């Protein structure tokens, strides 16, 4: 049984390297290499889109509006769009792109032939989609800084926070990917979950004037907590319940990952 071990040399011991805990980084790295090939279009998407939105809507509609909860509409919209973009970016990656690798390209199947586990792959995809969300967020922060919207250095706290928000939406989206039969399912996800959540989470207009039950429903989901944090830290709106906001977002991130991992494991090792 063991007589051939010398043939593989160092490989026989590779499984005991401490770096094994970070095997998921191979998946992040793979996705990064692919993303880098399309860097130009990716960056234009991250920077130009929010810039056009902010300038167009912020100045266009904003000039017609009085202040919103003590903020100019541009400030209000900027901090809302920040969260919206993080959500969108992470969701798209963890839905469409991840599903492509799961089903159509069978990339995950190939990775599993190597000494990698389903959990390595799922964590890698979760982190990667979270990072893409965070990158979108960072791009918007940059645009906001350029437009002079950021009030203080506390805005820098938003860098780790957008990563957390990205991970939350990445986790939820991976659960959907895990059970999806085709891309059609993602249309439902956006129409029946993402859009309604957006409307009650104070992204484009304040949620305060909504009926209490609707507001409460909004607060069950991470987007409203993300907007509250962004508004407080980026443009200086009053901010309390920081720990609660962070906790809700983190719970979605972790539960999403755990559930997605279980479902994808079942699906792939059937």
């Amino acid at each position, binding site marked *: 049984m063991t007589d051939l071990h010398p043939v593989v040399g160092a490989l026989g011991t590779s*499984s005991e390297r401490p770096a094994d805990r970070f095997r998921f980084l191979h998946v992040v790295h793979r996705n990064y290499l*692919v993303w880098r090939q399309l860097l130009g279009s990716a960056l234009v998407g991250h920077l130009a889109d929010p810039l056009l939105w902010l300038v167009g809507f912020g100045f266009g509609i904003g000039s017609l509006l009085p202040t919103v909860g003590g903020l100019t509409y541009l400030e209000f919209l900027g901090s809302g769009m920040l969260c919206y973009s993080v959500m969108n970016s992470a969701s798209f990656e963890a839905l469409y792109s991840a599903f492509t690798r799961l089903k159509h390209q069978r990339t995950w199947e190939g990775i599993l032939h190597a000494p990698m586990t389903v959990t390595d792959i799922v964590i890698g995809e979760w982190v990667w989609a979270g990072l893409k969300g965070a990158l979108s967020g960072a791009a918007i922060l940059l645009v906001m800084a350029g437009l002079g919207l950021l009030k203080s250095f506390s805005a820098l706290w938003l860098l780790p926070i957008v990563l957390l928000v990205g991970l939350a939406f990445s986790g939820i989206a991976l659960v959907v990917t895990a059970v999806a039969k085709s891309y059609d399912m993602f249309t439902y996800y956006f129409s029946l979950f993402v859009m309604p959540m957006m409307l009650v989470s104070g992204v484009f207009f304040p949620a305060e004037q909504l009926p209490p039950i609707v507001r409460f429903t909004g607060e069950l989901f991470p987007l409203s907590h993300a907007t509250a944090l962004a508004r407080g830290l980026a443009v200086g709106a009053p901010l309390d319940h920081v720990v609660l906001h962070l906790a809700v977002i983190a719970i979605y991130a972790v539960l999403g990952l755990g559930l997605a991992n279980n479902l994808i494991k079942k699906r792939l090792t059937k």
Partner: protein
Amino acid sequence: MLKVAGLRKRYGDLEVVRGVNLQVASGTCFGLLGPNGAGKTTTLRCCLGLTTPDSGSIELAGLPVPAQAREARARVGVVPQFDNLDPDFTVAENLIMYGRYFGLSRRECEAQVERLLVFAGLTDKAKAPIETLSGGMKRRLTLARAMINDPQILFMDEPTTGLDPQARHLVWDRLKTLLTEGRTLILTTHFMDEAQRLCDRVAIMDQGVIIAEGAPHELIDREIEPAVIEVYGDGIDSWFETAGKRYSERSELAGDTAFCYCHDPGPLLRTLEGLSELRSLRRSANLEDVFLKLTGRDLRD
């Protein structure tokens, strides 16, 4: 190298692997044969820890599977039935990226690319995107990819399906080299000549059960009469009824061809003399005859 006992796997109402036992010795080539849907791929996937079996025990490279399947796979190369090369990368990048999953450094992987491309006969395709490769080239690249970790054991599910004769000979040649290097090969194939040529031992699987096992020549000696006469042409039906059945130990009319198996073909051949409308072919028995005898001539699924 591989020990499987009492392996069972069910999909819905259908039990597709029904109590499989296997032993593959180190440094040998083992062939798993069987008609479509017999359960070969499912068995291999269970051995690699890619599918969770319902029951049974598996030991691969000295490690229990699925408990330590990941560690076992570090010493294994896998050629899946359907290629899953990464379409987002070029040929060379596919090899490098795959090596990274084994924990090899980029430099370690790059150092192997040249050798593996020669191995696969793809030296001038290093920078080609995957979608520009032909089916056979993809197959060879998948084989090269499986070698990136210098594996002790190779699992190959139909490695030569879709290859032209040149490429098939190239692959056979490579596989023989791997055997002389002391590696263990486990493969499935639908080409009986390939199994006969490469495998030290084969197992024939049908409907989830292994129905025969042994060295190819042993199976041929044990299951089949040594001489085979194939006869076809006008009037085959009446010749078969009057002479074919009578002068062979075992015979079969499949479509328009009679297959007659016997120890001494002399008497049978004499009945064909002067029958110019009948054509005949005399050959010695091979593994395909064994396969067809044991699994029948009917199409599966």
